[in-house]
């Protein structure tokens, strides 16, 4: 009985243990499924978070409008400049840009004391230089004279030498003729004949040698005279250079001339007590000096006749130049005023890698203006597929776009970005005209993305 009860108890314990074991597996399975459920959301969140968000648009048929603006300056076509006073100290400037001036209006004054001091320095430099030139001239003349004398002496010496050689040659020829008359008898001894022949041979050789000496002397004369002639030419060149200022060196000529011009101008200025006046009536268009400054090359005052026409000049790049041509109409706007004018391009001239565009302005069109902004606008032909410029990508010279497509995969139907190569017809800063045989007007073209796209990547609409 007790054994049966024990067996029963043992069975119950085993069953309980079995149930507990199963419970543990149920709990493990439950935990696993719960973890998988949580991870499903986590994985999905990460997937969506990493997914690029895109804007898209359909391509449209349109034209490409190209525009650009360039800042430039308004200048008088025949403006006068007061310059050439570099190095002087400005005492006072009397005019300002835009000021109307009359003929004889005082433009500015230079410091007279400084002017006289500078003028004195210049004059001293000029005096020293003039003395150097005189000394150089006399030295060159002496050299020329000496070269001519050397030439004459050499010529006389060579002529005398050749004459002596010719005389010796004539003597030898006479000796030979005499020797030929002294031919031995036919029955003379062999020794006589041999002696006669030897003498004749000697005379022939001496004559030949002398003739060669004469030829050589003539050649030497020619060469020596050439050299002597060159020496004379060199001496004469030196003399001419000294007389023509070239003795101071070719590069210094400009400086000397500039110094002489300066002396001339400064002397006139000193006579006018350092005052610079306007040569005619007009408008001051540029003042590049101020009181107290020492003038440099660009220190000028420019003024133009009030009736003279104005020109607008600006610099454009090679790309911009393709949009503007001589004879085209351009708009010019003047900062600080509502004034805007439409004018015609007068000329386009290349300067280095850029181009200078000149527009002749109508009289009165830009009165009182010194700067302006030129606007050029060109509209292209109509294209079938025009997209925002930022939708177009380029790599290695190949242009491509991303097209949105619906694709069904494991996660269901998703939007994916497909890379499509296209040809670029024309573009401006905002839009681009593209072409390809596979393009269609209902294609969804990605225009913007918050992450970098790659072919086949799943994306979300923004």
């Amino acid at each position: 009985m007790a054994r049966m009860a024990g067996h029963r108890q043992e069975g119950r314990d085993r069953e309980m243990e079995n149930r507990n074991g199963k419970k543990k597996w149920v709990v493990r399975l439950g935990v696993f499924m719960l973890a998988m459920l949580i991870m499903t959301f986590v994985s999905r969140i990460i997937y969506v978070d990493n997914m690029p968000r895109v804007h898209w648009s359909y391509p449209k048929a349109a034209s490409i409008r190209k525009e650009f603006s360039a800042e430039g300056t308004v200048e008088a076509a025949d403006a006068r400049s007061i310059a050439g006073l570099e190095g002087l100290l400005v005492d006072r400037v009397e005019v300002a840009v835009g000021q109307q001036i009359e003929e004889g209006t005082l433009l500015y004054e230079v410091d007279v004391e400084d002017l006289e001091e500078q003028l004195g320095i210049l004059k001293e430099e000029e005096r020293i230089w003039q003395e150097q030139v005189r000394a150089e001239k006399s030295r060159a003349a002496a050299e020329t004279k000496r070269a001519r004398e050397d030439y004459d002496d050499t010529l006389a010496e060579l002529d005398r030498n050749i004459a002596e050689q010719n005389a010796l040659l004539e003597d030898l020829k006479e000796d030979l003729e005499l020797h030929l008359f002294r031919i031995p008898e036919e029955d003379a001894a062999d020794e006589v004949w041999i002696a006669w022949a030897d003498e004749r041979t000697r005379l022939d050789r001496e004559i030949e040698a002398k003739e060669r000496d004469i030829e050589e002397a003539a050649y030497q004369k020619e060469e020596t005279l050439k050299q002597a002639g060159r020496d004379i030419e060199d001496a004469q060149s030196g003399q001419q250079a000294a007389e023509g200022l070239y003795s101071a060196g070719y590069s210094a000529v400009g400086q000397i001339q500039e110094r002489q011009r300066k002396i001339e101008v400064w002397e006139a200025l000193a006579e006018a007590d350092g005052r610079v006046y306007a040569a005619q009536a007009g408008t001051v268009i540029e003042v590049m000096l101020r009181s107290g400054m020492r003038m440099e090359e660009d220190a000028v005052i420019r003024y133009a006749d009030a009736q003279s026409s104005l020109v607008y000049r600006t610099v454009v790049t090679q790309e911009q130049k393709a949009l503007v041509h001589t004879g085209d109409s351009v708009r010019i706007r003047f900062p600080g005023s509502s004034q805007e004018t439409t004018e015609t391009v007068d000329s386009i001239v290349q300067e280095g890698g850029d181009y200078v565009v000149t527009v002749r302005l109508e009289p009165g069109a830009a009165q009182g203006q010194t700067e302006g902004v030129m606007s050029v606008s060109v509209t292209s032909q109509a294209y079938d597929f025009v997209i925002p410029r930022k939708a177009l990508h380029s790599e290695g010279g190949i242009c491509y776009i991303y097209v949105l497509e619906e694709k069904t995969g494991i996660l269901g139907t998703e939007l994916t970005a497909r890379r499509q190569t296209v040809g670029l017809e024309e573009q401006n800063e905002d839009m681009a005209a593209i072409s390809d045989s596979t393009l269609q007007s209902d294609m969804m073209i990605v225009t913007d993305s918050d992450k970098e796209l790659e072919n086949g990547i799943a994306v979300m609409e923004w």
Partner: protein
Amino acid sequence: MRETNNRRKRKRRAGSLLAATVCILAAALVCLPLLMIPGGAFMSDMELRRLLAPILAGQEGYAGWRLLPFYPTLDCFYNVLVASPDFYRLFWNSVGMTAAILAGQLLFGLPSAWAFAAFRFRGREALFALYVMLMLLPFQVMLLPQYLMLRSLHLYGNPGAVILPAVFSTFPVFVMYRGFTQIDGEILEAARLEGAGEWQIFRRIGLPLGETGIRAALVLSFLECWNLVEQPMAFLEEQRDWPLSLYLPQLGLARAGDAFAVSVIVLIPAVCIFALGQDALEAGIAYMGVKE
């Protein structure tokens, strides 16, 4: 005499040793792929590529393997569990399909098995023989008829195309039937004499006493459904409807490490279910061997 006995004993011992060695070797050979899975799941991509270079990169020589990774990493698990939402889609597809099939089998298969076990009616043997015959037919034989039927029912390409045929599978009916036949007929007769209705008998006697067979059928069905490959490939068109068993071929050799990690994860529910129903499974297999 004693010497003869000793010789016999030695011979018997040597024979046992040889048999044990052969069995251990065979078992090791069978278990080897299973042992490779955890190692591969924790291997880095670099280590896997180096070991499997002859397969992956077509290099000369033979592919190697390490049971323990030299550079253990959780990269593959991260790739699968965090960076692959598609894995979860298929995982929950498998969970859903398996749950639907098991529920369907309980709903339709359980009463069928009880009917075969508890009632005697005309044509019962013939009908049961038909069930057994259907159970023995391989899937390939049933593929075309099932395909035609599913097309006509507009279920082709729908998860129902996999669920419906499995719900009416005859194998669980057979296993549950075998479980119900273990109930003593006299108990059922006594209950009827006591005035119990058939529903009461089924619920109060059939289900508790046939629980082992039911659980065995459910465990076997779970393992079969969890690993379905042919049916989804044949009847499902969209990848989004696939079960997890089709995810591994999808990964390919380039993501061999991820495939090992997926294998480990896929094994977990199967191991849990097996542990839950191991006793019932053993009993159920024993029932199937009992002659009627």
